[in-house]
């Protein structure tokens, strides 16, 4: 189904920064988490272009905004909890309101932060970031798309929130032929009975769930939706019409994230039943990354089960 190769998308972020450093003249800010966000890899290669802001994420976001006003390309990095959570107001007012060209690299999103527990498991960042006018929100599924997303973010003029994970996930895309387009959903597998729209680490789980459904004679389509905003409403509407039922899957609260975004699209364009798989209005907990994910229903098993329930309810 997909290769054995696994990479955490935070590693992809660090690698991409180094790989793109000669092509694009950007600087990188971090708030004392360079070793974890993997901007440390960039720091090592380009020490003159890396600036630690210390543990002061709000300050970092406003500094990034100031840098951007001068035309200098800039990344600002921290954990999702602090980039989108603590610094929300700075991201909104310093970066979003003037629509400045700041790229926010937010790692350690979702419950697969694992052992650190609820305080560090941000399940609200997509919801927060997508309410900021003009903010592009991207949550890539694997190493290939994550690296490509970093370059795609550099190519557009405006704020971008890039969401990366801590836990290694399978590589899904072919390195040679992959092309990332902001705002595009990728049909990884076609199907006619139900559509699974997933983002981030739930994409590989959705492909696994598809195989389980296939064994039950259910033909499920799987769409990878790396861009949550602007969302690919065309493909969602097309598959709402084609399959009549949608499961959404995300490592995020079911409130305000991908599930909500998909519901907004189908409600306004082509209403069909939707079931949202994600963190169900609760906080996380400590444990190993995928054990925690499983407990919160972020798993191939749960996507499979919810798909079965949705089909049963609507046939």
């Amino acid at each position: 189904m997909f290769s054995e190769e696994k990479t955490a998308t935070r590693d992809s972020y660090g690698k991409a920064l180094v790989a793109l450093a000669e092509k694009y003249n950007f600087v990188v800010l971090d708030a004392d988490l360079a070793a974890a966000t993997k901007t440390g890899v960039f720091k090592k290669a380009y020490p003159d272009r890396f600036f630690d802001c210390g543990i002061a994420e709000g300050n970092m976001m406003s500094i990034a905004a100031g840098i951007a006003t001068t035309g200098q390309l800039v990344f600002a990095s921290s954990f999702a909890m602090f980039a989108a959570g603590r610094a929300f107001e700075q991201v909104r007012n310093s970066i979003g309101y003037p629509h400045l060209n700041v790229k926010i690299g937010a790692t350690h999103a979702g419950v697969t932060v694992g052992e650190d527990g609820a305080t560090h498991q941000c399940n609200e960042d997509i919801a927060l970031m997508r309410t900021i006018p003009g903010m592009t929100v991207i949550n890539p599924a694997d190493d290939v798309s994550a690296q490509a997303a970093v370059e795609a973010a550099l190519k557009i003029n405006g704020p971008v929130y890039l969401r990366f994970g801590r836990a290694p996930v399978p590589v899904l895309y072919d390195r040679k032929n992959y092309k990332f387009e902001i705002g595009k959903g990728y049909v990884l597998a076609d199907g006619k009975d139900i559509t699974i729209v997933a983002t981030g680490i739930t994409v590989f789980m959705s492909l696994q769930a598809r195989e389980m459904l296939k064994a039950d004679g259910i033909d499920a389509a799987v769409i990878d939706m790396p861009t949550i905003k602007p969302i690919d409403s065309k493909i969602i509407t097309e598959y709402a019409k084609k399959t009549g039922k949608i499961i959404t899957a995300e490592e995020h609260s079911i409130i305000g994230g991908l599930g909500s975004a998909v519901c907004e699209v189908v409600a306004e364009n082509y209403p069909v039943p939707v079931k949202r798989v994600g963190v169900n209005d609760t906080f996380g907990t400590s444990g190993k990354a995928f054990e925690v994910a499983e407990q919160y229903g972020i798993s191939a098993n749960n996507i499979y089960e919810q798909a079965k329930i949705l089909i049963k309810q609507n046939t």
Partner: protein
Amino acid sequence: MEDLQKKKLMKTAANIRLGIIEAVYNAASGHPGGSLSIADIMAYLYFEEINIDPENPKAESRDRFVLSKGHTSPALYATLAERGYFPKEDLKTFRKLGSYLQGHPDMKGIPGVDMSSGSLGLGISAACGMALSAKINQKDYRVYTVLGDGESEEGQVWEAAMFAAHYKLDNLCAILDFNGLQIDGPIADVIGPAPFDKKFEAFGWNTVTIDAHNFDDIEKAFASAKACKGKPTVIIAKSIKGKGVSYMENKCEWHGAAPKKEQYEIAVKELTEAYNAI
């Protein structure tokens, strides 16, 4: 400072004060107190200190200015109008639906505004970013930012202060408008953010304390900032909130209230008389 130069600056400041009153009165909304307290500083900045060209407001080599205490936008707008960035007549549209003169500075729509601001504590960080970018790109422009004394209660001000000293941003000059009053009362009663000089010194800054309404002081302070290498400078400018309008002076109720018609007429009369007396 030469007498002629000083008189010119005093007249400019008086015009800025008239512009502030005009804007706030017509909007029936806004923040006159803290705008009037920085009028002399703004006059000096835009007519003596800052390297700018109103004909080319986005010039890459220009000095930058961030009004970190963004609620005193009437002072910035009146100054920009006085300097020729846009017609003075437009000040009457301040805070009105459809006007580009937003309640708080908006860099997207207002010529001469280098950074959107208004949420306190954010502007000084943005100024740090501009100053750092100048260092990264070996540009010699300078960055100025005006802070409120009440604004210094925001923790982010001190995060920015730490950052500026750590990266030796000697191309950054902050002016702290020490008028002693905030919305809820005297700053000393609200939470007591002073002493500013010792705090900034402890954070690694060059500090200069001046009378915000004395142009000799202002001139010397900016010269000291330029001469200081390896550290950012903060000018602690002791000011009178509401300066120039008798009934507004040192009254915290004029922090965010607009004058009524009669009060407006008194303010205009006083400021015009002051102008004529220079």
